[in-house]
């Protein structure tokens, strides 16, 4: 059975939903962070799949950009988490309510 774009999209959708659910339900902020990475990778799979199918390299270039942005985002996000941990001795997202009224 050849691997068609449908399969890629199914895989991508599955990853995306797993990521979204992870973001929604988990309390540990690092897990949430990892879930976000999943969402981004789901996007990447989509981009690369369509690029290969349509013989257009732009999609792969986009994927490379997304990876770069994800790396930058991870760096910033982990910095924030570290700072937060030093203040609160915790990585529980329920305690991140400083912006509340």
């Amino acid at each position, binding site marked *: 059975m050849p691997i068609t774009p449908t399969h890629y999209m199914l895989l991508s959708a599955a990853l995306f939903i797993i990521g979204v659910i992870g973001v929604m*339900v988990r309390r540990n902020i690092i897990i949430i962070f990892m879930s976000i990475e999943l969402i981004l990778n789901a996007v990447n799979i989509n981009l690369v799949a369509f690029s290969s199918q349509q013989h257009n390299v732009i999609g792969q270039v986009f994927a490379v950009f997304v990876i770069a942005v994800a790396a930058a985002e991870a760096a910033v996000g982990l910095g924030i988490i570290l700072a937060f941990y030093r203040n609160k001795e915790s990585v529980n997202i329920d305690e991140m*309510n400083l912006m509340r*009224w």
Partner: protein
Amino acid sequence: MQHIWIIPLLPGIGAAINGLLGIRYFSRKTAGVIACTMMAAALGVSVMAFWQMLGLPADARSVDVVVAQWIPSIPLATHTGVVGMFQVPWGFRLDPLSGMMILVVTGIGTLIHVYSTAYMHDEPRGGVARFFCYLNLFCFFMLMLVLGNNFLVMFVGWEGVGLCSYLLIGYWYEKKSASDAGKKAFITNRIGDWGFVLGVFLIYSTFGTLDFRAVQNAAATLPVETMHFGVLSFICLFLFVGATGKSAQIPLYVWLPDAMEGPTPVSALIHAATMVTAGVYMVGRNAVLFSHAPQVMTIIAIVGVLTALMAASIGLVQYDIKRVLAYSTVSQLGYMFTAMGVGAFSAGAFHLMTHAFFKALLFLGSGSVIHAMGGEQDMRKMGGLKKYLPVTFATMMIGTLAIAGIVPFSGFFSKDEILFRAFVANKAIWVVAVITALMTAFYMFRLMSMTFFGGYRGPAWEAAAGHGAAAGHGHGHDAGHHPGSADAHAAHDDHGGGHGHGPWHGPHESPTPMTFPLMALAVGAIVAGFVGIPAAIGGGNAIEKFLEPSFTASAVQLKLDATEPNGSVRLQPDESAAAEHEESHVSANVERGLMAFSLLVAIAGILLARKFYVTSPEISDRLAGQWAGPHRVLSNKYYVDEIYDATVISGTFGAGRGLWAVDRNVVDGVVNGSGWFTMISAWFSGLTDRTVVDGIVNLVGRICEEGSFWFRKLQTGLVQNYALLMLFGVFAFVSIYLFMR
């Protein structure tokens, strides 16, 4: 003669030097020398100017000097439209009248300055400089008064001499009576000045100029107000009110006797010789104006002669040597006004001059007596001083003979001229004036008798004979013991410095700087009359001819006022004066008879006084007992001060209190009421603010607050909640997009 403005300036400089530097730095001697030098220099300039003026022809003796513009030209509009340009220069005019006055002021002023150096010698150092500063300042203003060629410059001097009079009367300001007397003099003068100012205003609005000559020439063209009381009469009346204040006439004479609280040289200079004659001078200066208001002239004559009589009668019973002289001055000023009132302007001015000599002499003599008695002023404590004070006695006797009107002393000629002119004008006035002359002779010889003749009645002194015990004691006591003498305390202050400390060595002749002016003035008192020997007894009456141009709207100035229609002025000579002149020729015999009569009257007065106070002193006591009532009235000066107290002064006080009550109740009430009203309305305003305005604001706030209660719950701060909502939103929009497509 173009430099007559220097004459007032010199004493002004002296005053400035002594006032700015002298009080702190100069010794008594330096201060005195500076003041005397300035006065002597002024005298020198005056004499030179006068001499040059004598060199001019009789009808050209008038020199105007404008030093500077004071008020620049401004258009002057009256009810008849713009009548010309109004301007006031610092202008001075030397004419016969002002020439005579500057000689009197600087001459007698110089002598009195010299006298003061000795008289004030016991004062503290700064006090002497202050005294000379005031004295020089007085001469400055007095000379400005007499030299000014318009009413405004005269007014500067007029007010200035009043100020200096105030300062000098209150020279011993620590003494309550002296400072009170100063205030009384000043305030009384202010009342007169009010009239003077009104007169000047009226002149300004009537004639559109304040220059004396222009006013006289303009007035000469107006009809004589015989029947009605027109604007000229009002001008003259107001000016005369000013004169009554300055020259101590009824009803404003009350300040002059009190002014004797000042040092005696001041009394001599200001309150006898010069300042008090300013009113007479002013009337003479405006002779044309006054002769056009015959009704006012009558008033002046009546007031003058009544003042003369009243003051002379008070002088009969006073015991304070200076007060006798003060009332005598008031009385003599009354004579001068009588003369002015009957149109005998030259006679009045003549008497002014002779009076300046003999009255200054008498005052300085009395100062010498007071000096000799160690500050005593009560004549009952004097007596027999003739042998102790020979020079003072001789000179005062000359002065007394002059004032009594004995031939050939100066007072005789001037007083007889007045009496004769009064006789011509009105017999009733003449009768009163003759009675006054009798009284004058009487009280002056009473003064002389009580002071110089008879036995010594004063306190004992420390002499070789051994009265030692009584000396200091007796002297110290006198001060507080005079019954009825208002200036008992003067005993200390007149002479506080010197005799107060050491024992008093009895009456003694004064030092040369005091006797020299006495002798000089005595000479003046003898010879001053010779310039006015009337034609009836072979004289030329030079003074009258000399002064006449000052009293007429002369045409001398035609060349100056060529634009003014002055031609007619000359054609209208003073009819009354001419008529009287005519009459005086007719009645030379009458005049001689009157002279003899008044001489007899004077001698009668002298003999009477001699009988009462020298030969048989008990008569005067017996008379005083018999006529207790009149005597008491006279001793209390007709109760005029009390009447003024009861009417004018308490009226003023009452009005003041009434106004104060109005102020306190009505004005303060209105103010407080408005304050109260503001407070109440502010309270209501605050209430509205608190409830209504704040209520609205708070309501809005509350609504926002309550309304936001539910919305606020959405802001959980939990990122996942937000993400979930976002997810729902995305789903919703995508669903809508898909379904609605």
